[in-house]
């Protein structure tokens, strides 16, 4: 079993307008073990993407306090690529486009950097694996010869993130709003992809605004984030409650002084 621990995590970003640092995460605690699926919900701007990017190691986000431990070892000093090779994966809310690099070439590169230099994955094995996963995700083979995310629709980008997840097979996958912009059918397809990964050797942190996704990928734990902290943990029923009541009820119950976007 592997464990990813987030301990009292404080994170700042540079506010481009005001030219000074702004604290986004104000002490996040969370423990993920392989075999588990966690969901994170929370109002817009509360720091969910900040949390995912920071775990993954995006240099834009500065950790000022706390730690992130993978099996007891701090990963804060590791660059993003090293963390990825250690088993972390982030399906991004807004995946980047890389013109000129085909999807297939990119996938092969990503797989082979995890293997010894003199033992790249044989092409036939790669293609088999690719075909299998394209099928599972109802994706057209032509997508693999297109340039990485270039000109992909919102939904296609999300599927492509899941294709990468299935090909790379990480231990810890953070899925940041993998369901946003997906139609109902695509939602099922993407969920099928994630569920295919579920095993004793896999854990996922699923960030979503919609309880609906959690009907397809049923989580073990639901965390609610507000104002840069996890304010409540629960089971799937917590997501249901938020769906019905919104965040203000929970906020008032907890006596938190946080302004929600729709109250501006």
């Amino acid at each position, binding site marked *: 079993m592997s464990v990813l621990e987030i301990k009292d995590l404080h994170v700042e970003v540079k506010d481009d307008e005001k030219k000074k640092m702004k604290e986004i995460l104000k002490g996040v605690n969370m423990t993920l073990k392989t075999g588990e699926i966690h969901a994170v919900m929370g109002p817009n701007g509360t720091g969910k993407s900040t949390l995912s990017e920071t775990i993954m190691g995006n240099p834009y986000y500065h950790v000022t306090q706390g730690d992130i431990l993978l099996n007891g070892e701090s990963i804060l000093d590791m660059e*993003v*690529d090293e963390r*990825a*090779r250690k088993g972390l994966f982030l399906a991004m809310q807004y995946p*980047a486009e*890389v013109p*000129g690099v085909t999807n297939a070439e990119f996938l092969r590169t990503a797989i082979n950097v995890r293997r010894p230099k003199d033992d790249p994955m044989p092409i036939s094995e790669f293609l088999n694996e690719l075909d299998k996963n394209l099928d599972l995700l109802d994706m057209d083979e032509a997508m693999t010869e297109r340039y990485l995310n270039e000109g992909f629709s919102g939904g296609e980008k999300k599927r492509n993130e899941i294709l990468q997840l299935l090909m*790379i097979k990480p231990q810890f996958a953070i899925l940041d709003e993998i369901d946003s912009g997906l139609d109902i059918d695509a939602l099922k397809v993407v969920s099928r992809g994630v569920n295919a990964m579920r095993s004793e050797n896999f854990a996922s942190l699923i960030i979503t605004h919609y309880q609906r996704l959690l009907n397809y990928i049923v989580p073990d734990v639901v965390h609610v984030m507000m104002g840069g902290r996890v304010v409540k943990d629960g089971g799937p029923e917590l997501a249901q409650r938020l769906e019905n009541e919104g965040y203000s009820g929970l906020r008032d119950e907890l006596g938190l002084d946080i302004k929600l976007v729709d109250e501006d």
Partner: protein
Amino acid sequence: MDKKTDFSKNKLLHEPRWLTQKRLAAKKLIPKLGMPKMEHFKENDIVFADSESPVFIQKIENNTDNKANFIQIGTQTVQAKLSQAMTDKGVKLLDIFDAFEQIPDIMQKYFMTEIIRADENKLNAIHLANLNSGLVLYIPKNVALDEPIEVKLIQDSRQKLDWYCHILIIAEENSRGHFLQHLSTIGDQKNIANLMVEVIAKPGSHLEFSSVEELGSNTTLYFERKAKIETDAHIQWAIGLMNSCDTVGQIDSELIGEGSYANSQLVSVTGGQQKVFLNNRVTNHGPHSTGLINQRGVLLDQSKLIFNGIGQIVHGAHGSKADQKNRVLMMSPDARGDANPLLLIDENDVIAAHAASVGPVDPVQMNYLMSRGIPYKQAQRLVIRGFLGAVLDAIPDKDVRKKMIAILERKLINGQRYRKN
């Protein structure tokens, strides 16, 4: 610069009288002419100091792969062959000095007369006065080459020997062909390479000119490549400048005829202390002509790269089109790059556009690739290759593309050697 142009020592002197006279006339011009005119290029940016008089070369064995149609090492042609079918159809591929003897009429008509002239600038005059190597490709009317003509030109820098190499390509009416040159250097003496290509594309002809270049760092390179494109003729340039040397270069497409077409694609990667100045010019003279420029540069280390894209539509070229894209990617804070699009339009009824950008590698792209486990350097090479891909993918010949990518990869790895991971 004009010293030591000593023809008596030149063993290539089985040349015709008219050529010798032409050379002498060019030699007289040298002190009167200035350097090539180029935005952002000053005479002292790159100095073309010629070597001492050439020494004679020991016989060179042809040990390069002999798949190529034509191989020249220094001033010696070591291979020149064509398929029987092409020979039967009258195609000619000749050492330039053989061409002066064997097809004097053609040579007298086209060699440095109407396409590139010696009196344009000092380096052109020096070129003609010192000409010591080169070749001629002649494709007769209505003949389509069955496969690309592959030419390997190897600069011999095991000795002090400036390289004045001239290529003349004549594509007669409705002919078709693909010319592919590969330039490299052996040895590490400091030498000048002054290389010229003249292309005449007669009505209805189609010519692709591809160039894969990896000249050494002790070379100082000047090149001019110019095509005269007649009615409905097409020319496609695909130039991969992966040289390691200081360079002043010009590519010129003269769209003379109605409906003529030029697509000028170029990629350049600079590294070390290299300085590269390039003019890529397309001039629309003929009505309904199309001139496209697409050039992309990648700068490593402390190198400098200037891209001037010049699109000119002259009066009378109605219904013509000029479009150019110039993009430069800076891989190092110490590199200096510039992309200057220039549109000169003297006609109303035309479509003209240009785009230029200079910038660093996109950190968002880098972070995305690295988040999949790809190490920094490898991710950087992917982004660069992707960036150059727009031009590389347009190269019709798959082998050429592969070759360019392989050379590119080598050059990038070399440029990244100071970074740890």
